[in-house]
């Protein structure tokens, strides 16, 4: 019961609570008052009643005595008949329920009864404590006993009247109570309304709508409270807006960075990753949280990452790692930076890592290194090879002077020839260098042409030397159409065929064949094949070097194959030579990458 009451009480709002308390107190006071006043009324009535009874009895008694004995005939003659008549005609009080007269033999000479119905609940009657009053009065005249006069009076009428009054009181009380309750309710509601709206507004606030405000109303101190509340809400809204904005900016930064970022706790368990990181694994960001590297990487790699994490967290120092990394089945180079994260006490609590794909950069670096090395080699070669003729020229000029002084005419002629040769060589070298640099700079647009046609063009240019050496040249008639720089590819063909014709050796039936074949790996390779001197495979790379000549006595500067190689590489193709050895002939192959449709 107590439990239920306390539960109900707890569910009540302030206004009903206050109303209830006030009402209950009033009810208590009023009930007490009603009780007291009812009691008082009843007591008063009863007292009056008793007085009335006695008066009635006395009147009746006097009447009985007077009537019975004073009939005018004999002074002491008791007349029962007359008594009954008197008793019958007496005007009794309304409360009298029974009247009787018993003579000396105890025989009821007269008896009259009347019933007054009790119209109240029994409890009220009991509560009033009123009982039927019996009054007996012996009739004794001049010492002679004539009989007993009895009178009963019931309190029922009084009780009924009291009940009516009581009911009226209770009704009035209930009405006024209701009135009081209502007015209290109303007044409280009015007074507490701002507080109630505060409750509602604060509820809306907590639900996330930060734009709501309380209407300022009520008593001054309440107004102050509401004003403060509104200010608080406004500053809260502003702070939250600023926070949200900064969060949004941070989010944008994190999610837009191509850098892959992750945050791990002390046990190398992921706390968070950014989108770029998750995308790398084709997973969602949420799928990382709470898991470690063993879930996402092969055990060996995960162990390595964990060891790195531990090193960073234990040393408290940033670590920069470049390593191989497999993403969606592709091998990449990545650069990872791991940074220890500290709490306010300075203890390392987490690890922030970022890594970026540097595969392309590494590739570019390697290419640049290659280019630099190539350039260095080129400069070295040029400076060396251009210096050689100068040494020759200066040397033999000096010798020429000495010869002139000595009159050694025979040697002078040879010296002059050497000087002339060296200047020719120098000129040829310079022209070749210029040509080589032109290949890289001047790229003509690629066009479609047949490789057969390119080879035939080359043969036309080389007609003289081919005829002089009696070489039989065959060209495959239906070589594929390629998409390339025609001028340069023709140059390649020309150089290769010219070399083949030039290094025929003592071949009695010199032959050169130009064609095309599929390699084991499916690529299409063009070839220039001869049955001449052949090449020692020891020198298969060296021959493509700038100004490299296997035979110092041969014509030319040794730029031909370097030029060819450069052209093919500019077309993203490859070139190589195959030869079974001396006098076994050689085959030069070159490929051009896949042609556009």
């Amino acid at each position: 019961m107590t439990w239920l009451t306390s539960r109900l009480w707890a569910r009540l709002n302030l206004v009903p609570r206050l109303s209830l308390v006030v009402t209950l107190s009033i009810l208590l006071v009023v009930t007490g008052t009603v009780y007291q006043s009812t009691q008082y009324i009843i007591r008063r009535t009863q007292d009056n009643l008793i007085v009335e009874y006695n008066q009635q009895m006395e009147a009746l008694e006097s009447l009985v005595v007077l009537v019975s004995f004073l009939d005018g005939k004999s002074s002491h003659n008791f007349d029962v008949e007359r008594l009954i008549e008197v008793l019958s005609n007496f005007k009794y009080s309304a409360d009298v329920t029974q009247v009787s007269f018993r003579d000396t033999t105890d025989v009821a000479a007269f008896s009259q009864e009347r019933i007054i119905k009790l119209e109240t609940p029994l409890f009220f009657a009991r509560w009033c404590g009123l009982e039927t009053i019996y009054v007996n009065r012996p009739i004794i005249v001049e010492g002679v006993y004539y009989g007993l006069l009895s009178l009963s009076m019931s309190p029922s009428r009084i009780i009924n009247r009291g009940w009516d009054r009581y009911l009226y009181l209770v009704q009035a009380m209930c009405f006024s109570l209701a009135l009081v309750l209502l007015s209290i309710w109303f007044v409280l509601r009015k007074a507490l309304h701002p507080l109630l709206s505060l409750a509602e507004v604060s509820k809306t606030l907590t639900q996330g709508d930060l734009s709501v405000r309380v209407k300022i109303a009520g008593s001054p101190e309440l107004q102050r409270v509401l004003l403060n509340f509104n200010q608080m809400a406004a500053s809260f809204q502003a702070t939250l807006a600023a926070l949200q904005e900064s969060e949004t900016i941070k989010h944008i930064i994190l999610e837009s960075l191509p850098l892959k970022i992750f945050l791990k706790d002390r046990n190398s368990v992921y706390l968070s990753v950014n989108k770029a990181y998750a995308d790398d694994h084709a997973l969602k960001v949420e799928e990382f949280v709470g898991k470690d590297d063993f879930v996402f990487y092969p055990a060996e790699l995960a162990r390595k990452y964990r060891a790195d994490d531990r090193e960073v967290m234990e040393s408290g120092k940033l670590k920069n790692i470049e390593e191989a990394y497999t993403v969606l089945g592709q091998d990449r180079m990545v650069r990872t930076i791991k940074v220890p994260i500290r709490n306010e006490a300075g203890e390392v609590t987490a690890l922030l890592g970022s890594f970026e794909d540097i595969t392309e950069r590494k590739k570019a670096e390697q290419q640049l290194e290659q280019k630099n090395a190539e350039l260095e080699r080129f400069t070295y070669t040029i400076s060396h090879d251009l210096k050689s003729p100068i040494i020759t020229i200066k040397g033999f000029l000096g010798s020429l002077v000495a010869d002139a002084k000595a009159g050694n005419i025979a040697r002078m002629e040879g010296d002059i020839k050497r000087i002339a040769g060296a200047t020719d060589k120098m000129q040829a070298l310079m022209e070749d260098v210029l040509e080589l640099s032109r290949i890289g700079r001047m790229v003509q647009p690629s066009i479609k042409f047949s490789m057969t046609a390119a080879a035939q063009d080359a043969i036309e240019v080389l007609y003289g030397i081919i005829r002089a050496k009696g070489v039989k040249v065959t060209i495959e008639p239906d070589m594929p159409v390629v998409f390339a720089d025609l001028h340069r590819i023709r140059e390649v063909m020309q150089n290769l065929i010219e070399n083949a014709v030039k290094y025929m050796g003592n071949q009695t039936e010199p032959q050169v064949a130009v064609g095309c074949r599929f390699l084991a790996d499916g690529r299409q390779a063009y070839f220039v094949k001869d049955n001449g001197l052949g090449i020692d495979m020891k020198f298969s790379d060296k021959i493509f070097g700038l100004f490299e000549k296997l035979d110092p006595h041969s014509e030319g500067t040794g730029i031909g194959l370097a030029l060819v190689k450069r052209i093919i590489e500019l077309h993203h193709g490859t070139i190589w030579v195959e030869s079974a050895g001396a006098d076994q002939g050689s085959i030069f192959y070159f490929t051009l990458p896949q042609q556009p449709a």
Partner: protein
Amino acid sequence: MKGELLNILLVEDNEDHAELIRRSLEENQVANRIYWVQDGEEALDYLYQRGTYADKTKSPCPHLILLDLRLPKIDGLEVLKTIKTDEKLKSIPVVVLTSSESEQDICKVYAFHANSYLVKPLDFEKFTRLMHDLGFYWLGWNVNPLK
């Protein structure tokens, strides 16, 4: 000068340079015999007495090797490396004579234990002077292990 005949192996692909060197050495009366080869492969054939150089009397073991760096087939550095890693050949003094002044070349050449590095002078007088000093030093003053 002791007047003894000393053998020089000249490894030089440029015929003109070879002629200049030969002439300078002769004119400075450095008494010696010059054996000239034109590329790295030939040089190694000579030293190992292979092929056309099998005859020991016609192609004797040199007391000094004059080596150019940029050579056809096998280049000078490779020849130097081979000589200096061969137990029999490594005691022969090797003088690198080249037109290259590249620091890289100088470092590599000494790393392969060449005995000297000389740059061919552009000037004729200096050239002959160098050849004179070279002959004088290596064939005169220098005590050769093969003798």
